[in-house]
C-alpha cells in the first residue's frame, strides 16, 4: 500500500451558538493514502463538511474552535501552522471544490482571471505564461473552445461548465490532495457522470488523493476506495468500499443502503429509518443512533453508554454494541 498522505487524529471541533455549544465534529480519525479516494458519507449536519473545512483551516474562529486532535499532512500538523504557511498549503498541496459552482466563483471576474490568480500566486508564472496555463487547464477539464471561454464570466457558463472551471482552478497547481465537497450534487446525472469520469482520469494521471464528501451512496460505490460513515458528529463505521457495500455492520449504514431505491428491483416498499437526524444541541444519551435503531431503542446499554469505534485489524471499524465484524 502507498504511503499515508493525510491523517486525521481525534479531531474535535465545536461551534459557539446563541443556544449553546455544538460539537460539530467529535473525535474523528481517518487517513488517506497517496492516490487513494476516501469518501465521507452522512446526512446533512453530521459534520462531514466541517471536517473537510477544518483540514483547509477555513472555518472562522470564533465561533468555531478546534478543541483537540491533529491533522497531519505528510506528518506535519496543519493545525499548528501559521496563517502565512497555510496560504502556501492551500491551493498548492490541498485544493478544494465546492458544491455550489455559482456561488463559489466570483461573478465580476472572468474565468481566466480567477484561474490566473491561483496560478500566479502558487506557481512562478506571470502574465502571458499564467494565462496560457489557464487556457491549458480549461482544455484539460474538457471545455470546448478554451481560448474563448477563458474570457467569459461565470454567468455565461452552464452549471456543468462552472463545475469544470472550479476543477480547473483547483487542479491548476497540481495539488496532492483534492477535497471535493459534494462536487456533483447540483448537477444532472449525465453531467455528473462526465465530471466524475474527469476526476478519475486526472487522479490516475497525477496520482492525486481525493477526499470525496457526499451523501450519494451510488457515487461512493463507484468512486471511492475507502468509506467513512458519519452520524451525529462521529464516525460510526469505516471500511473499504467493497466490504462496506457487501456487508454493512452498523444498523445506520444497513438502513441507509436498504432505503435506497435501486433501478430494476421489484421492491414494493422501501425500507426506512424512522425518525430524523437528531438536533446537535440536544443529542440523545448513549449511542446517538439509538432512538432510530430497531435494536438500540429497546436496549438499556445502547441508551446509556456510547459505543466506542472498534477496529478489527482489516481496516474496518464500527461503533455499535451489537455489530460484529
Amino acid at each position, binding site marked *: 500500500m502507498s504511503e499515508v498522505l493525510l491523517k486525521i487524529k481525534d479531531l474535535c471541533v465545536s461551534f459557539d451558538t446563541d443556544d449553546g455549544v455544538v460539537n460539530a465534529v467529535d473525535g474523528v480519525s481517518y487517513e488517506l493514502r497517496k492516490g487513494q479516494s476516501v469518501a465521507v458519507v452522512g*446526512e*446533512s449536519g453530521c459534520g462531514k463538511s466541517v471536517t473537510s473545512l477544518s483540514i483547509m483551516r477555513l472555518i472562522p474562529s470564533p465561533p468555531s474552535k478546534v478543541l483537540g486532535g491533529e491533522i497531519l499532512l505528510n506528518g506535519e500538523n496543519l493545525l499548528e501552522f501559521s496563517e502565512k504557511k497555510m496560504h502556501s498549503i492551500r491551493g498548492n498541496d490541498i485544493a478544494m471544490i465546492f458544491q455550489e459552482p455559482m456561488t463559489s466563483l466570483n461573478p465580476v471576474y472572468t474565468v481566466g482571471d480567477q484561474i490566473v490568480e491561483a496560478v500566479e500566486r502558487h506557481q512562478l508564472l506571470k502574465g502571458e505564461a499564467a494565462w496560457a496555463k489557464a487556457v491549458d487547464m480549461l482544455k484539460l477539464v474538457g471545455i470546448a473552445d478554451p481560448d474563448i471561454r477563458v474570457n467569459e464570466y461565470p454567468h455565461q457558463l*452552464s*452549471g*456543468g*461548465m462552472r463545475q469544470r472551471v472550479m476543477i480547473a482552478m483547483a487542479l491548476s497547481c497540481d495539488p496532492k490532495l483534492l477535497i471535493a465537497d459534494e462536487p456533483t450534487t447540483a448537477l*444532472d*446525472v*449525465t*453531467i*455528473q*457522470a*462526465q465530471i*466524475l*469520469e474527469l476526476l478519475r482520469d486526472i487522479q490516475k494521471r497525477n496520482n492525486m488523493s481525493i477526499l470525496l464528501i457526499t*451523501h*450519494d*451512496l*451510488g*457515487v*461512493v*460505490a*463507484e*468512486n471511492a476506495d475507502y468509506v467513512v460513515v458519519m452520524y451525529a458528529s462521529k464516525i460510526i463505521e469505516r471500511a473499504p*468500499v*467493497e466490504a462496506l*457495500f*457487501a456487508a454493512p455492520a452498523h444498523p445506520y449504514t444497513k*438502513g*441507509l*443502503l436498504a*432505503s*435506497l*431505491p*435501486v*433501478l*430494476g428491483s421489484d*421492491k414494493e*416498499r*422501501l*425500507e*426506512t*429509518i*424512522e425518525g*430524523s*437526524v437528531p438536533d446537535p444541541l440536544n443529542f440523545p444519551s448513549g449511542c446517538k443512533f439509538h432512538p432510530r435503531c430497531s435494536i438500540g431503542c429497546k436496549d438499556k446499554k445502547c441508551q446509556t453508554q456510547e459505543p466506542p469505534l472498534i477496529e478489527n485489524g482489516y481496516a474496518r471499524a464500527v461503533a455499535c454494541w451489537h455489530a460484529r465484524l
Partner: protein
Amino acid sequence: MNDKNDNILIRVNSLKTYFPITKGLFSRVVGSVKAVDGVSFSIPAGKTLGLVGESGCGKTTVGRSILRLIPHTSGSVEFDSKDIFSLNKKQMQRVRKDMQIIFQDPYGSLNPRMTVENIVGESLGVHGLVEPNKRRDRVVELLEMSGLSGSCLNRYAHEFSGGQRQRIGIARALALEPKFIVCDEPVSALDVSIQSQIVNLLQDLQQQMGLTYLFIAHDLAVVEHISDFVAVMYLGKIVEITTARELFSNAKHPYTKALMSAIPQPNPSRVINRTILKGEVPSPSNPPSGCAFHPRCPIAEDACKCNQQKLESKNDSSEHLVACWKA
C-alpha cells in the same frame, strides 16, 4: 397511451408552453423559449405517471401548465372530463380543489409567518369545506395522516426539519381531498434516510385515498419505484413513454438509455459500462434541427439532423411509444 382505458383522470393533448424572449425598452418579443413543445399523455385514475428529464427539459413547466399556474400557449388538458383551459376563473377555482401540488423546496414553499394550522387549514376556509369550529380537528387529522403529531399546530415552519416540512406540504395538499396531485421533485431536497419515508408516505396515501400522481423527478430510481408509467422528456418533448417496468427493462430511445446508464449504482463490484453523453442540453430557445437530441446522440445519422420522428409505437404494443428513427 391507454386509450382503451375509460378510466382516464387527466388527458393532456399537445400541450405547448412558450415563454417570450423580450428585448429593449418596450420589451419587443424577439423569440420564444419552447419550454414545453407538444406534450401529450394521459393518466388513469389512481395511477402514477413519472416525468423525468434533466434540468431545463420542461418537466416542471408541464406540471404547472396543467394546473394553470402558468399560462399555456396551445393544446388542451382534459381533467375529469372538463376542458381545464376553457374554464373561467370561478369554475377553475372549483376544479383547483381537486388538483393540488407538492413542491420541491420544503423551505421555500411554506409561509414562514403562518402557523402550521393556518398553512394546512387555509384552503379549507377558502373553499368553505369545513365549519370554522371544526377546522382544527380536521387539520389535526390531516397532520396525523401525514405522519406528524397534532401538537405541531401552533408551531412555525422554521421549527421543523426538511422531512417534516415536506410532510406539512403534503398535509396541505391533502386538505381538500384532491383527486390529482402534481408532485414536483418532492424528495430531491431531502436526506437519503428521509427520502424513503416520504416516498412510502406518498404511496400509502395513494392507496388509501385513490390519488392520481404526476410525479416529476430527475432521480430515475425513485421514479421507477413509485410510478406505473414513465415519460422521459428532452428539450420540451417526450422522447419515450411506457410502463415503468417496460422502460427500465427495455428502454428504446438512446437518450433514455444514456440517462439510465449515467446513474451511479450503490454496488462497487458492478462493471461500469457507461455511455457518457457528450456535451450538454442545448438551449430551448434555439433547439437543434431535426431530432433535438442528435448532437449528443451516439447513434445519430444524417436523417436525424433534418427530420423529427414523431412519438410512435415501435412494436405492436400501444403501451410503448418512442420518438427515434433508429430505435
